[in-house]
């Protein structure tokens, strides 16, 4: 039954222009970023070699390419998540789901997975760009996969936040504004210099956890950070829907 929810949501996502617009626009932006960083590397290659740097193409291009894209996706994801539950409520279809023999978590997860499919497709398409370099030079596939994985986790978290706020309201725009504000707060917490960061702010800081993926380090604490946020949002969205069914 959850598969039915996923399929229906995918049909609605790809039946609306938003998904295609996001796919197209992000392809265009990522292509632009990819080319400017590639060109930058070609220009600086001589200087780097003269300075005795061992920085290769992968180490130069991959972090510079994925870092801005992960930020962009972090803010695009709530836009995809904002209507997931809010639109069911405003379109009166929520009653259909609530009266069906399917658990609330299955409904929430089904909708989330459908939107995550779109984001995953987006990241795969973006990841193909640096991968094309492997036709001519040897690139560090591990670093590329890790950077893409970090970007994916980051987008998955943004989507979950969007979905949670979507469960609170009837208006998708309110859900988007709330989740973007929350993400901005988590981003800014880590924007001070290292001396200003306490253990708590370092733990909460989103960029702090994202950075390691781009520098080629896979730290389970960073993976855990995104997974915990995502799971928390999905659990809270389910709780919120269950709460609305109960007597206030």
């Amino acid at each position: 039954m959850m598969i039915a929810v996923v399929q229906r949501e995918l049909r609605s996502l790809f039946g609306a222009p938003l998904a295609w617009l996001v796919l197209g626009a992000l392809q265009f932006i990522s292509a632009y970023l990819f080319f400017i960083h590639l060109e930058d590397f070609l220009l600086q290659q001589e200087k780097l070699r003269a300075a005795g740097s061992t920085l290769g193409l992968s180490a130069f291009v991959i972090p510079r390419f994925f870092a801005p894209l992960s930020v962009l996706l972090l803010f695009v994801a709530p836009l995809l998540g904002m209507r997931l539950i809010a639109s069911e409520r405003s379109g009166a279809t929520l009653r259909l789901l609530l009266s069906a023999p399917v658990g609330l978590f299955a409904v929430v997860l089904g909708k989330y997975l459908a939107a995550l499919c779109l984001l995953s497709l987006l990241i795969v398409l973006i990841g193909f760009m640096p991968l094309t370099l492997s036709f001519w030079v040897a690139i560090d596939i591990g670093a590329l996969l890790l950077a893409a994985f970090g970007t994916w986790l980051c987008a998955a978290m943004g989507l979950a936040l969007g979905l949670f706020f979507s469960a609170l309201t009837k208006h998708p725009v309110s859900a988007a504004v709330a989740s973007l504000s929350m993400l901005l707060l988590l981003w800014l917490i880590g924007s001070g210099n290292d001396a200003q960061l306490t253990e708590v702010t370092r733990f909460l800081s989103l960029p702090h956890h994202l950075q390691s993926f781009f520098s080629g380090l896979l730290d389970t604490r960073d993976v855990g950070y995104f997974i915990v946020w995502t799971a928390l949002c999905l659990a809270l969205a389910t709780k919120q829907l269950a709460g609305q069914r109960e007597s206030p």
Partner: protein
Amino acid sequence: MDTEPLIKTTGLTRYFGRLAAVQQVDLAVRRGEILGLLGVNGAGKSTTMDMLCGVLAPSAGRVAIGGFDLAAQPRQAKRLIGYLPEHTPVYAELTVSEYLHFCARLRGLGRRASAGACETVLDKCDLQAVSKRLIGNLSKGYQQRLGLAQAFVHDPSVIVLDEPTAGLDPVQLQRIRDLIVELAESCAVVLSTHILPEVTAVCDRVMILHDGKVVHEGLVSALTRAAHRLTLRCARPLDTAALGAIAGVTGVTLSADGRATLDFEAHTNPAPAVARLAVEHDWELLELNAGQSSLEQTFVELTYGTAVDRTTSA
């Protein structure tokens, strides 16, 4: 008709904050029976229906569907329910077929079973011609029929319909009423409506809700029985004394337009005697009508009547 009710509620109550939207509603609907829920806007019909289908949890009381407690065994109970809420729950971006497949799968049917079930309901609701069209482009009438189609696509034992004929033209209205009666042969049906003749046309029993409480419950046939009143109109002047002498007649009143109204005792029928008298006295009988104690009358007395009383006392 089975003796065990398919829908059974006991002490069903729902609060929204301090407002008691539904209070102590007990109902039991058996297979083959159609219960009509009547009430003015805000009487608690939709809240009751939401609770029957598990959309809202009751603040107090229980709901059992086919013997399964809705709170303790929601999956088993919900598999038996088909629900058409007040606002048709459709996705504008899907086609009619896609939507029905989704609903069937959501209600637990397998891929093959849902394909067959969709074909059946498309035929029954006259939706074959629009099966490939986007729901967003359909008229309100089609969308309403689609909403009804999704409520029984999975062959449920219990069908709950909140104003099922809203937005339908008279021809569609009749077809949908016939369909509801047909569905009720194998199901227990609860429907709410504002259209009082619909209750008399479709329902076996009626429950009138007012301010969240049940103010009347009974058989529709009992509410629509003939009233103890006859009216007659004749071309020539009437003899009221002769009419008053008929056995069972308790009073005769003559109106300015020449009509006579006869009140009579229950379990008597003076109509044949009146007709005979008219022939004997050569009154040239033009009309002889039996008055009906309409459901409308009961409904207005129980709901608007109390509303008016409260306004005047306030």
